[in-house]
């Protein structure tokens, strides 16, 4: 009897087979990820609508690190905003200093001396190297690869030592000032710098050896988090993300500021705009930044010691000896300390190529000693915005490398 019921054409067998084909009824579930999650190096909350493990939709909630940057800037002197800019993108603080100072200097119509410009480029590129090392290292960590993370962090430590020697602090250095930089290059810097560049290249070679052709890493990055050239433009995505989609836009080349028109470097671009392209672009940019920094140190050695500030009484304080002995300088010092510079009435926007893309500052002055408006155009925020489209239809684990290589920095995104 039993053998009869198991005949292939028997009605009960057919019903069982049809039952196997039938879709199980599943409901979409919403998963909360963040605002503090070990796999996201940023304070952000994802509301992920999932069908099994497939992402159906994503809502991103930003703002957890909002601390009223603009409101604070509007309540102190023009100087007092500079330390706040350090805390925007704390991975590349000097670049944020630079963006703000260039915007205010544009309103003041100040042209800084050549030595200062080379120092700014040098400090900015060190900052960019640190930022890219963190991005690539942390991405490996979040994909469960501890070793390359440690290579990246070791290189960043060496880089921070350099920044400390140049600027006096490792992370929030407050190095760039209105009309100049804090001080010139120390005498022992070039030797230390060359040693660190050598070690960084070696660490980077180790890093690339472990990661770039690693099967697991490539499988997780290739073809995930794709964004097309057109989407990038529609969403105003900039920086390595835009370049990985094949657009060679780099403000250091396209709108050269400071002395970028005198340095030799290449702009790497990707082809498809996936996470793997973003990784390759970032690693290549570290090499290019090392090249730029080397040229800066060479040029600074040629220029030798000398003034690193403009001789403009509006933004620079008089020398101490004169303050103590002359009436005018004492008054000027008093006014500079108690009130700060007055910036001519008007508006200005400057954009620089930060590690994440176009970092813009739009400043408005009413002619007084307090900024009327300081707007920071945060590349992190705009680069994060198209992320739902990049992960829709992908698996949940693909969200992690995609977020890593967008490199959203909470301090800058939320301000």
């Amino acid at each position, binding site marked *: 009897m039993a053998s009869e019921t198991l005949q292939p054409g028997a009605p009960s067998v057919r019903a069982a087979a049809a039952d196997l084909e039938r879709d199980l009824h599943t409901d979409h579930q919403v998963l909360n990820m963040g605002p503090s999650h070990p796999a996201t190096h940023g304070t952000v909350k994802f509301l992920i609508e999932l069908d099994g493990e497939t992402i159906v939709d994503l809502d991103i909630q*930003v*703002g957890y690190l*909002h601390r*009223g940057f*603009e*409101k*604070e800037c509007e*309540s102190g002197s023009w100087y007092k905003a500079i330390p706040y800019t350090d805390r925007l993108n704390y991975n590349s603080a000097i670049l944020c200093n630079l963006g703000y100072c260039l915007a205010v200097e*544009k*309103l003041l*119509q100040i042209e800084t001396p050549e030595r200062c410009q080379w120092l700014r480029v040098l400090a900015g590129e060190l900052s960019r190297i640190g930022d890219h090392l963190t991005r690539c290292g942390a991405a490996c960590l979040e994909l469960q690869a501890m070793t390359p993370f440690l290579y990246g962090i070791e290189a960043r430590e060496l880089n921070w030592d350099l920044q400390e020697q140049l600027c006096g602090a490792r992370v929030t250095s407050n190095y760039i000032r209105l009309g100049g930089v804090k001080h010139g290059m120390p005498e022992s810097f070039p030797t230390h710098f060359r040693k660190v560049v050598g070690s960084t290249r070696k660490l980077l070679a180790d890093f690339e050896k472990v990661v770039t052709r690693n099967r697991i890493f490539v499988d997780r990055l290739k073809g995930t988090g794709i964004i097309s050239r057109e989407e990038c*433009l*529609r*969403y*105003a995505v900039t920086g390595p993300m835009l370049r990985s989609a094949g*657009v060679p*836009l780099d403000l250091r080349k*396209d*709108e050269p500021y400071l002395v970028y028109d005198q340095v030799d470097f290449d702009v790497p671009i990707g082809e498809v705009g996936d996470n793997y392209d973003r990784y390759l672009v970032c690693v290549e940019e570290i090499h290019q930044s090392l090249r730029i920094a080397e040229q800066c140190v060479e040029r600074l050695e040629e220029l030798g010691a000398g003034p690193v500030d403009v001789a403009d009484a509006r933004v620079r304080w008089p020398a101490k000896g004169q303050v103590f002995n002359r009436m005018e300088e004492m008054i000027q010092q008093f006014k500079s300390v108690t009130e700060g510079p007055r910036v001519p009435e*008007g*508006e*200005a*926007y400057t*954009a620089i190529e930060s590690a994440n893309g*176009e970092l*813009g500052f*739009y400043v*408005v002055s*009413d002619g007084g000693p307090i900024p*009327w*408006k300081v*707007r920071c*155009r945060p590349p992190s*925020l*705009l680069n994060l*915005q*198209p992320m739902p489209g990049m992960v829709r239809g992908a698996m949940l684990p693909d969200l992690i490398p995609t977020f890593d290589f967008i490199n959203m920095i909470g301090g800058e995104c*939320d*301000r």
Partner: protein
Amino acid sequence: MSDFGSVSLRRLQDAFPDALLGSHADVGDATVTLDPAQLVAVMRFLRDDEVTAFEMLMDLTAVDYLGKRETRFEVVYHLYSVARGHRLRVKVAVPESAPEVASLCPIWPAANWMEREVWDLYGIRFEGHPDLRRLLLYEEFEGHPLRKDYPKTGRQPLIGPRG
């Protein structure tokens, strides 16, 4: 860049003679002030026209000119063209009595979050925005903190967990 300012200005003047309310190129930034009623049409033209070719809406923000100007707010757009490598700043004045301006989300989706931020911090509404929620602050926040009459030390009531 100032050269470009005159080219794009002429182009705009030919296409929209009555939409331009003013222009300048102080410190090298080409700037135009527009009639808010024609904002969307002009912006669409600036994106699609092959001379201006502004593919990117780089930045969108607002300024509160309380006590300085008759029309209190100004919404400021910064455009960038990758193909041409030039920039333009576009401004529209927004009165306090009706703080509302047309949304640019249909032209550049980049406007979405930036308009939400301006609504959040300045209380300017964007007509036609698909999802005008606060961006950086929480829904229960009272007021708009970047308005000049919002005190820097302003306190907010504590809120409990959401239901």
